[in-house]
């Protein structure tokens, strides 16, 4: 029974009763008016003050008496543990439990949870503890608390994640977790101590410590005797062939059986010998993919130390080729041939899973119906000078609505005073309108390699340009590549919501040698992905990574649709983000392994999510490394042996502390107060009567 019971709360209110009664009965001595105080001399004994004091003492005694009775009936008790909240030598414990993906194997998590609970139970009186979970981030789940039961309940609720462990993130996260009013801190790391979780810099393992703090680091390693582990490292496809890579850690040579599931249908099972801690590739031929995004899942059939990395999820995009019009004056020109070939190559399966197939549709400029622009994401023009004014207006509307145009210069451009679509001025004189190399060919002096179109392209030194359109870039243009004469070779211009990319030389090999160089395919392919915005979708991710707005908006984008409204469905079929509410999408973490579906109004995509390969590496940190870590944190070496000794020493000490019953003390106090009040009130009463009789007599 406690004071929270309503009856006793009411009893506590009754303690105010004596106060009100005294207020009512206490007669404040009135000041009597007197003609003059000239002949008066103040008395040494301030009688009325004494009287007030007597009233006050009696009132306090009566209130205390009532309170003591009420509290005594509440039967309060005091746990000896709570007598001293912070005593000398008390320690602030920071319990960090590793919940990364590697902890899912072989009861590792259960063991560290048990070790953590044992430690909590053995905490000294006055110590407090905070509980953290560590994977690729540090999360606080309980504390600071002096109460072991709270911490143990929190430990019981811990579940393993699919994320990678990062000790650097963990220790930097602890930096702000040291309370200033505590002197002794101790970090307890319950982990399998994976070597792969180490940051590149040792300095990141040392948290920022408060001034004058004493910090220690202790390890509670969880290591299984059999640490052999195999994982599926990758899946690759080429046509109807699927290649699956297998890797072993701490493993002997063994045969591993693999099964391949495509679109939830088990296709085939194979076995292969894997060398000790080595790699092997299993090839599956004749796999029939659907003309869409396919789910490919490979699994190792034999169990090992870590089960979660025995599966690999892979999305294969075999969507039908997307048409792109190539507006030209001659459908049989070399520029058309080069572009068609390059775009077919870019979209070839097995080359890049992030790109789509492209089918070039050459069309004579006079035959091109502008109404068909609605069907395309982007448009190719082999000579920008051939665009008549009517078509230019339609293309501008197409651009402003969010479409894209890739255009090159050509013979038709030379006779114009202004470049269609881009609006650049062209000199009237044919001699000056062309930048013609007189002796040596022009080269490429500089490229903006950070741009998605030029990202990773090499071989610019082999490019030779004999002729190019001589124009000056506007301030609004983003020049991506410069000629050696300082004029732009490739520039991007924003028109409304759309993008216009102009190559100031031709797409055939008459003015340059670009189409016959290896970088041409990459250039055209990346331009295609960039202009169609298909490059935004990365269909392979690691658990713990995020899906960003641009990745969802890149799903099946069509002309004029820039909305990020969409839907994300996790591997369990649960909808994470509803249509129209994707403004909260910026930090959507992929917390499960499997396939995440991304939908929006114009299409869908699939993201295969797997755990980080580093989690499969079961090799642990060496003792020397741990000693260095401990020494760096606390300034004194502490070995695992010492830790183990402390573990055994702590043990389970679930002492039942005696409870102090306070109600007996309160009853005694009530009796004492009652006696005192009786004696005092009798004494005061007699004194008052005596004074009154004296006054009457005189």
């Amino acid at each position, binding site marked *: 029974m406690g004071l929270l019971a309503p009856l006793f709360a009411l009893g506590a209110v009754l303690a105010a009763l004596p106060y009100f009664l005294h207020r009512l009965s206490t007669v404040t001595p009135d*000041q*009597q*008016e007197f*003609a*003059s105080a000239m002949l*008066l*001399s103040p*008395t040494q004994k301030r009688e009325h003050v004494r009287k007030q004091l007597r009233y006050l003492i009696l009132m306090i005694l009566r209130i205390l008496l009532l309170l003591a009775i009420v509290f005594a009936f509440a039967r309060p008790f005091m746990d000896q543990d709570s007598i001293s909240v912070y005593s000398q030598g008390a320690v602030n414990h920071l319990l960090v439990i590793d919940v990364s993906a590697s902890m899912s194997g072989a009861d590792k998590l259960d063991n560290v949870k048990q070790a953590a609970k044992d430690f909590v139970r053995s905490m000294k009186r006055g110590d407090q503890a905070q509980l953290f979970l560590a994977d690729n981030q540090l999360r606080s789940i309980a504390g600071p608390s002096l109460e072991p039961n709270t911490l143990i309940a929190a430990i019981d609720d811990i579940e393993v994640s699919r994320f990678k462990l990062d000790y650097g993130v963990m220790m930097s996260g602890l930096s702000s977790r040291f309370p200033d009013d505590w002197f002794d801190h101790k970090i307890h790391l319950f982990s399998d101590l994976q070597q792969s979780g180490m940051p590149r810099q040792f300095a990141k393992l040392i948290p920022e410590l408060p001034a004058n703090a004493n910090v220690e680091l202790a390890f509670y390693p969880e290591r299984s005797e059999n640490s052999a582990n195999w994982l599926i490292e990758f899946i690759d496809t080429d046509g109807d062939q699927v290649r699956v890579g297998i890797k072993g850690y701490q493993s002997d040579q063994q045969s591993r059986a693999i099964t391949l599931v495509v679109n939830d249908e088990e296709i085939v099972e194979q076995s292969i010998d894997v060398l000790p801690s080595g790699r092997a590739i299993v090839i599956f031929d004749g796999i029939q993919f659907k003309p869409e995004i396919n789910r490919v899942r490979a699994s190792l059939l034999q169990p090992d130390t870590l089960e979660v990395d025995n599966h690999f999820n892979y999305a294969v995009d075999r969507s039908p080729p997307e048409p792109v019009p190539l507006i030209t004056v001659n459908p049989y020109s070399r520029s058309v041939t080069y572009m068609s070939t390059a775009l077919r190559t870019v979209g070839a399966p097995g080359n890049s899973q992030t790109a789509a197939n492209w089918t070039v549709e050459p069309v004579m400029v006079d035959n091109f119906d502008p109404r068909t622009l609605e069907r395309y994401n982007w448009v190719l023009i082999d000579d920008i000078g051939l665009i008549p004014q009517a078509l230019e207006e339609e293309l501008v509307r197409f651009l402003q609505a969010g479409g894209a145009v890739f255009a090159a210069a050509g013979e038709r451009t030379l006779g114009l005073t202004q470049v269609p679509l881009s609006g650049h001025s062209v000199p009237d004189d044919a001699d000056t309108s062309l930048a013609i190399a007189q002796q040596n060919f022009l080269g490429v002096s500089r490229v903006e390699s950070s741009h998605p179109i030029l990202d990773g392209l090499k071989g610019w030194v082999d490019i030779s340009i004999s002729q190019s359109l001589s124009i000056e870039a506007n301030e609004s243009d983003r020049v991506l590549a410069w000629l050696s004469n300082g004029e732009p070779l490739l520039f991007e211009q924003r028109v409304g919501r759309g993008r216009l990319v102009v190559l100031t030389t031709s797409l055939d090999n008459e003015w340059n040698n670009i189409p016959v160089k290896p970088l041409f395919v990459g250039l055209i392919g990346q331009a295609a992905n960039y202009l169609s915005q298909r490059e935004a979708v990365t269909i392979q991710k690691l658990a713990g990574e995020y899906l960003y707005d641009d990745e969802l908006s890149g799903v099946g984008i069509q002309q004029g649709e820039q909305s990020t409204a969409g839907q994300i469905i996790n591997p369990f079929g649960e909808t994470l983000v509803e249509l129209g509410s994707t403004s909260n999408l910026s930090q959507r973490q992929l917390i499960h392994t499997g396939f995440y579906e991304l939908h929006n109004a114009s299409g869908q995509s699939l993201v295969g999510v797997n755990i980080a390969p580093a989690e499969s590496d079961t090799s642990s940190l060496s003792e020397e490394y741990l000693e260095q870590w401990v020494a760096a944190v606390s300034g004194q070496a502490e070995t695992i042996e010492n830790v183990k000794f402390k573990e055994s020493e702590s043990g389970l000490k679930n002492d039942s502390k005696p409870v102090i019953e306070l109600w007996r003390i309160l009853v005694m106090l009530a009796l004492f107060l009652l006696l005192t009040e009786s004696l005092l009130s009798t004494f005061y009463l007699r004194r008052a009567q005596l004074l009154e009789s004296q*006054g009457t007599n005189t």
Partner: protein
Amino acid sequence: MPAPKANPMQRLLDPAVLSSLSNLELVARTVVDGVMVGLHRSPRFGFSQEFAEYKPYTEGDDPRYIDWNVYARSERTYIKRFRGETNSPLMILLDSSASMGYQSEQSTVSKMQYANYLAASLAYMASKQNDAVGLMVFDEQVRDYRPPSSRSGQLQVILHCLDKVVAERGTVFEEPATQIGALGIKKGMVAVISDFYCDYESLLQSVRPLAFQGQDIMMFQIMDPAEIKPEIKQPGPLKDAETGQVVEVSREYMQKQYPIKMQQHIASLENAAAAVRADHVLMQTTEPLNQGLNGYLRFRTRRS
């Protein structure tokens, strides 16, 4: 020796009776008539307009007072005699400080009321004697001033002033004394009505110039019986009516030491009055007013 039989009219001089009369003039008349009934005519004759008797002329009498009309009718020389009359203006200084508002349970009137009755009675009596009478009401300053006059409406003016008096603020005697000196009032009588809670030295310094001017000073000290012999049933702090000072006094002090101090105070005041040849009259608010009026008459007699 048997006690003199009390005159029935003097019953009306009791303040308890007077307090039931709302009209101050009526109070004054009642008091004065009550006093006058018990007095004998002065055997001394003077030069007032009130005819007294004829006396045969004898050697040594002033021949200017021979009534020649009687001589013409009877051929005997008679001297015409009038009731004695002195031209003695009366100036009443009335203390209206806050201490004058004190009234204990033993008294039916406050000191201020009692002082008003006394002042009104003095004014009435003086007016009846055709003496000029004036009034000055003061506390820390002079609050009201009516110069002495023997005009017929003067009594009403003074009674009206007395009606308005309110007891408040402190007491400073220098102010009225200085003003009377400065106004150059004709020699006469000055009646100071106060409780005289003041320093004797300062009182002497204030009054002494008036005495040097030839004024006959009467100091009517009005006290409540509870001031002379206090009865405190319940000990507690006492608050000075003028200064607001709160003093906690023991019952023992009020019963034993305070009366002694009060007697010493009165005695000191009497000595101070004697030092300037003033007359000191202690009047308690429960006593009849005739004592005060007798003092006035005594002075008037002394001056005639």
